[in-house]
């Protein structure tokens, strides 16, 4: 009870102090300001508090700020020029950069897709593979063993291969789609995208290694 009372009192005190600060900044409405001013006139403690706020502001305003260097605008202009020529440079380099990107992504994507297909076909998709499939991280899981795909047989291998190749994770690695998407990007953006792509490829390969391990374990288990 006493604690509640103390808290309410503190809140009211803070609210009043906040209002004084706002009065000092001329941020109260006319009516609010008039009412608070009347209170300040009647209560010396409030008047002292208001003076204290004023003293703080005066000290802040007296801060000796550094002067802008005389050549700052000239330096800014040089940066603007550099900025401009940088973007022109990107435009000139765009085509070779895109070609390089296409080649690298093509290689990375092709390798990843081939590895995924090989593993998928080697593992098969019978009921015995379900635990491994459940343990797979999202990208590999959807790319290699699409959800709801029927158990494979020799006759359906070709159809399954096509389904796998067009699965989201694999499709994302296809170069033409990426190339079109990034056609308007700057070289810096492309470079960043390439880094991410390489990381994504490494992640995929790491996941495939894990899958291989799980398959080996499963084989050992089925033999036992």
């Amino acid at each position: 009870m006493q604690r509640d009372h103390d808290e309410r009192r503190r809140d009211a005190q803070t609210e009043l102090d906040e209002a004084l600060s706002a009065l000092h900044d001329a941020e109260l409405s006319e009516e609010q300001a008039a009412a608070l001013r009347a209170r300040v006139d009647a209560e010396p403690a409030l008047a002292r508090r208001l003076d204290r706020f004023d003293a703080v502001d005066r000290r802040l305003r007296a801060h000796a700020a550094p002067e802008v260097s005389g050549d700052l605008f000239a330096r800014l202009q040089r940066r603007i020029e550099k900025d401009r020529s940088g973007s022109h440079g990107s435009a000139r380099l765009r085509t070779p950069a895109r070609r390089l990107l296409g080649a690298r992504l093509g290689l990375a994507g092709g390798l990843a897709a081939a590895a995924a297909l090989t593993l998928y076909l080697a593992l098969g998709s019978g009921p015995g593979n379900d635990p491994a499939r459940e343990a797979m991280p999202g990208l590999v899981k959807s790319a290699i063993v699409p959800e709801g795909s029927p158990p494979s047989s020799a006759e359906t291998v070709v159809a399954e291969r096509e389904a796998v190749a067009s699965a989201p994770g694999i499709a994302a690695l296809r170069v033409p789609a990426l190339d079109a998407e990034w056609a308007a990007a700057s070289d810096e953006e492309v470079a960043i995208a390439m880094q991410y792509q390489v990381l994504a490829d490494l992640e995929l390969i790491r996941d495939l290694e894990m899958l291989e391990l799980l398959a080996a374990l499963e084989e050992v288990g089925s033999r036992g």
Partner: protein
Amino acid sequence: MFSGLAFPAEASLREIDPDAQLMLAFQAGDVSAFEKLFERWAQPLLRYLERIVRDAATAEELVQEAFLRVHRARARYVPEAKFSTWLYRIATNLAFNELRRPRSRSHHASIDDETTGIQLAARESSPEARAHARLLGEEVEREMAELPERQRMALWLSAVEGLSYAEVAEALETSEKSVKSLVHRGRARLAERLLDLEV
């Protein structure tokens, strides 16, 4: 960027904010308008940024960066808020980025905390009064540096740069209510420090 406000607000800003007019002139191809904006705002911006990042050289780099952003954004500029509010918002975001950098320089030697004390002290009559004023100035500076970033920014923009709470809210991307509280808490803390020293 600033876009999507109702037309009347935009129209009145075009008329009443000379900086918005300069920015629109720059947008229309008047390069000298950009230089005028720089002349008007580089110094206040430097003063603000130096208070926040506490390094004169870094603050100057950020001033340059802020104007570079303004230059890049000229084609997309729509005068929905005062130009200065927009500029302070850019500067605030740059300052936040700078403060988040792991190896952000913390303090500069060129303009030290003592200078404020000296400035105010010079106005006092007796040597004792001057020494005391200098001490108070130093302490306020020190306490200011200890304030949380947003309190420091809000208090500075309001108390020194003279922005309204609404403008500070725009610059800090927060509400006016929050600004009121930030300014008060910062100011109250500095006031307490002053009181401690005067007792």
